[in-house]
C-alpha cells in the first residue's frame, strides 16, 4: 500500500508540473465540441439526444491525447527499467497510472459537459441522473484500456498515430454502449448499461492480468 501511495504522490507531482499541457487538452476538447456544433449547423433545432454523443466524443478525443502522455516521464533515462527492478510493483504501478489518467479524464468530462450544455442549450443539471452513471463506467473502461495500450506504444516515435489506430476499434462498442445508455428515451438504455458494465469488467480484469506480463517484457 505504501508503494502505491508513493507512486500516486509521484504521479500527482508530475501532473502538477504539466498544467499548461492539461489546459491545452481542455481547449482541444472545447474545439472538438465547437467543430461538431458547426458541423450540425444545418439543423436549426438541435435534438436533445445529440448532446450525450458530443460530450463522449470530446472525452474520447481529448482523453486520447492525455493517454498518449501517460509515460512521458518514464520514456527517458530508462525509468521503466528501474521500476522493473522493484519486486511486485507492476499492479501498483498500473493502478497509479490508471488513477491519474482517470482523474484527468474526469476533469475533461466535467469541463466538456459544461461547454456542450452551454453551446447546445442542454439541461445538464436535470439530465445529470441519466448521464453520470454511464459516463463513470465509460471512463473506467476507456482509462483501463487506454493506460494498457499506451504502454505498448510508449517507445514508438509514431505513437500519436499508433495509439488511436489500435485503441479506437476496441473502444468503439464501449462508446456505443455509453452513448445509448445515456439516453433514457432510447428503449433499450437499461440493456446497454448492463453491456457497459460487462465491458468494464472484461477490460479492467484483462488490463490488470496482462500488465504484469508487459512489465516483465
Amino acid at each position: 500500500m505504501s508503494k502505491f501511495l508513493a507512486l500516486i504522490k509521484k504521479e500527482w507531482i508530475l501532473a502538477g508540473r504539466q498544467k499548461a499541457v492539461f489546459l491545452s487538452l481542455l481547449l482541444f476538447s472545447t474545439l472538438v465540441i465547437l467543430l461538431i456544433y458547426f458541423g450540425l449547423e444545418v439543423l436549426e433545432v438541435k435534438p436533445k439526444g445529440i448532446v450525450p454523443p458530443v460530450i463522449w466524443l470530446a472525452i474520447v478525443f481529448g482523453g486520447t491525447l492525455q493517454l498518449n502522455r501517460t509515460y512521458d516521464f518514464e520514456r527517458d533515462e530508462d525509468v521503466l527499467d528501474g521500476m522493473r527492478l522493484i519486486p511486485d510493483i507492476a499492479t501498483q504501478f498500473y493502478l497509479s497510472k490508471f488513477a491519474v489518467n482517470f482523474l484527468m479524464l474526469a476533469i475533461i468530462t466535467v469541463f466538456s459537459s459544461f461547454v456542450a450544455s452551454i453551446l447546445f442549450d442542454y439541461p445538464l443539471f436535470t439530465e445529470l441522473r441519466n448521464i453520470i452513471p454511464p459516463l463513470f463506467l465509460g471512463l473506467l473502461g476507456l482509462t483501463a484500456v487506454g493506460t494498457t495500450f499506451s504502454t505498448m506504444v510508449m517507445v514508438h516515435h509514431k505513437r500519436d498515430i499508433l495509439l488511436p489506430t489500435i485503441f479506437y476499434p476496441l473502444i468503439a462498442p464501449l462508446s456505443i454502449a455509453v452513448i445509448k445508455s445515456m439516453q433514457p428515451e432510447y428503449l433499450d438504455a437499461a440493456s446497454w448499461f448492463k453491456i457497459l458494465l460487462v465491458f468494464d469488467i472484461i477490460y479492467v480484469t484483462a488490463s490488470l492480468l496482462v500488465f504484469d506480463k508487459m512489465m516483465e517484457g
Partner: protein
Amino acid sequence: MAKKFISIWTIVTAMLIAIDAYLIAFYAPIEINQGAAQKIFYWHVPSAMTMMTFYIIGGVASVVYLIKKNAKADALAVSFIEIGFLFCTIVLVTGPLWAKPVWGAWWTWEPRLTSTLFVWLVFFGYFMLRASLENKDHARLYGSVLAIFGCLHPPAGFKFALKPAGCNVADADCFYYNCAFTRRLIGLFKI
C-alpha cells in the same frame, strides 16, 4: 519437402475452390425469397465460422505466448490471426453484396456486421503494431496483448452463439437481440 507439400496443397485447394464455385453456380437450387443473392451464403457463412475459429485459436496461442514466452506460440498466433483476418475480410465483402439486393442497402449497421467490422479494425491495428515495433520481443509481447483484447471483444465473441431465433436482423437496433445478448452475457459471468 515442405515446398513440394505446399505446392501440392495449393493445387488441391485451387481445384476444390473451382469445384465449389461450379456447385454453387449450377448445382445448388435458387432460393425462392432471396433469389441468386442467397448463393453468397455458401461463401459468407463458412468464412465467418472459419474467421471465428481462427481468431479464437490465435487468441489462445497469444495467451500461451504471454505465459510461456515461447516464440513458437507467437508464430502460431500470428499465422492463425492472419488467416482469420483474411476470412474476416471475405465476410465484410460478401455481407454487403448479399445485403444490397435483399435489404436494399449495402450497409445496415446490423449488430453482427458492425461487430465484425470492429474486429477487422482491431486486427488491422494488430498487424500495424507488430510491423511498426522494431524490437521483435516487444512486437511479440504487445501483439499478444492486443490479440487477447481483440478476442475478448465481447460482441464478436458471442454474436453467433447468442442471436435468438426471434430477432429481426434487418433492424439495426434489434431490441430483442440486445436484451437476450445482455441477459446471456450477464448469465455467463454469473456462472
